[in-house]
């Protein structure tokens, strides 16, 4: 079965989630991956959206963080201050799922500006929930399509702190959570080095070469001692993924593929 690199990324992201995860879900690929996990191997996963919905089980993917599908299918919906104070800051969340416009080798993420903050070349939407999702969830997973524009030597702005300058920088700031333990791209999977916290490629998706990854990374990317190969999407995974996207597109009155 043929599949796109984007589909591989979503499937790889879904696979790392477990039945017991309490997952704080961002819109876009994170939401796709989390719902794919829920509809395949992790039916018991709890999906939490920052709009306040706890245990949402949407039939189609939400376009926004607060689509009706979320609240209608959730176990309960709480106010947004409560969501951030009790549920996120209170330490209930096992995994936060993030994306961003730029990421650096220490998994610091920029979703604020390209250029300077005060005179931006591009004003991006901003951090939203991300800065605290990254510091307060027990760990975070990042999903981003990989290119030299997005995987950069130095992010223009640290919206969301990953490992800062590496090493024990998180601990020095008094952050007690694990941080971005996993970065999933359309080419590979990266994990922070245990000591330096620099991202290292630990798995390549099938058919992807080291050169491709090197070309798509804005810093001299390191590879782990053992680099595994990501198993390709199974037919079952692909068919659930495509059904979900097709339903979503129909429900939103969009062309298929417009919303991924």
């Amino acid at each position, binding site marked *: 079965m043929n599949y796109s690199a984007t589909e591989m990324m979503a499937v790889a992201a879904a696979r790392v989630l477990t039945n017991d995860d309490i997952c704080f879900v961002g*819109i*876009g690929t994170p939401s796709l991956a989390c719902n794919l996990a829920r509809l395949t191997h992790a039916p018991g996963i709890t999906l939490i959206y*920052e*709009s*306040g*919905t706890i245990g949402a089980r949407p039939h189609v993917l*939400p*376009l*926004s*963080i*607060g*689509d*009706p599908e*979320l*609240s*209608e299918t959730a176990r309960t*919906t709480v*106010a*947004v*201050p409560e*969501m*951030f*104070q009790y549920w*996120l*800051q209170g330490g209930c969340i096992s995994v936060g799922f993030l994306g961003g416009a730029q990421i650096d080798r220490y998994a*610091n993420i920029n979703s*604020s500006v390209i250029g300077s*903050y*005060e005179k*931006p*070349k*591009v*004003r*991006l*939407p*901003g*951090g*939203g*929930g*991300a*800065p*605290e999702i990254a*510091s*307060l969830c027990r760990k975070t997973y990042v999903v981003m399509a990989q290119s030299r524009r997005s995987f950069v030597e130095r992010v223009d*702005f*640290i*919206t*969301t*702190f990953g490992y*800062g300058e590496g090493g024990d*920088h*998180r601990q020095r*700031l*008094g*952050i007690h959570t694990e941080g971005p333990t996993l970065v999933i791209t359309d080419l590979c999977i990266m994990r922070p080095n245990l000591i330096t916290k620099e991202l290292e490629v630990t798995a390549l998706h099938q058919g992807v070469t080291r050169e491709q990854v090197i070309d798509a990374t804005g810093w001299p990317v390191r590879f782990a001692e053992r680099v595994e190969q990501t198993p390709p999407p199974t037919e079952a995974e692909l068919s659930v993924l495509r059904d979900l996207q097709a339903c979503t597109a129909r*429900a*939103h*009155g*969009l062309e298929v593929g*417009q919303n991924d």
Partner: protein
Amino acid sequence: MTEFLALREAIAAYVHDGSTIALEGFTHLIPFAAGHEIIRQQKRNLTLVRMTPDLIYDQLIGMGCARKLIFSWGGNPGVGSLHRLRDAVEHGWPRPLEIEEHSHAAMAAAYGAGAAGLPCAILRAYQGSDLPRYNPNIRSITCPFTGEQLAAVPAIRPDLAIIHAQRADRAGNVLIEGIVGVQKEVVLAARHAIVTVEEIVDDLRAPSPNSVVLPSWTVSAVVAVPGGARPSYAHGYYRRDNAFYTAWDALSRDRERFLRWMEEHVLRECPAVPQP
């Protein structure tokens, strides 16, 4: 206590040039109709407060109503940029826009502090982020028990809150259901509050003793505006117009096209609900 007004009267009475106003509704119950009336009445120099500016603030900003924006996520959810917001920040069109940027966690807490009558909120936030370097309203405080440093942000206390809700009863009590966002907080934090509702009913029909109800005395004015949240949605009444949110990307990208659309769908309308 609560007045029952027409939308035009309510906006004229409570929105003044230079006011700090918050039209809230977290991706649900966004008070579009009220925002459009503000545009029609050509209010100016507003400080606009909203966690997610969304299309309604993109429109207010593009029509030149805003001087400053206090926000925490300024995109078109699931679609991309807010082009009018970007144009104002990047190029000062139609006028320069000052921004005060927070994270969601901080802004939600700041609304909570406003509702709670506190001068500030404390939270565990912004650790390692560059945001505090550019926002002097992010400070820190030391816990007197553990010595831990916590972030502090000032309470949000707008001059006026505007929200949309499912219904009000004839005394002016308001029921909100579904994603309730920061609606209760913003109403309690603000000096005045306008609530537009889908319908005014004899009995609120609150399904639970713990339903989110705003007592009449927290609300300055109730305005019946069926469909007043479109293209956002009202849980139990109508669904989100996701196709419009997607279409807005192209409609708003170009200044002229944006102005034409606003002229046709907002400025020429009497208080009613635009369709794309």
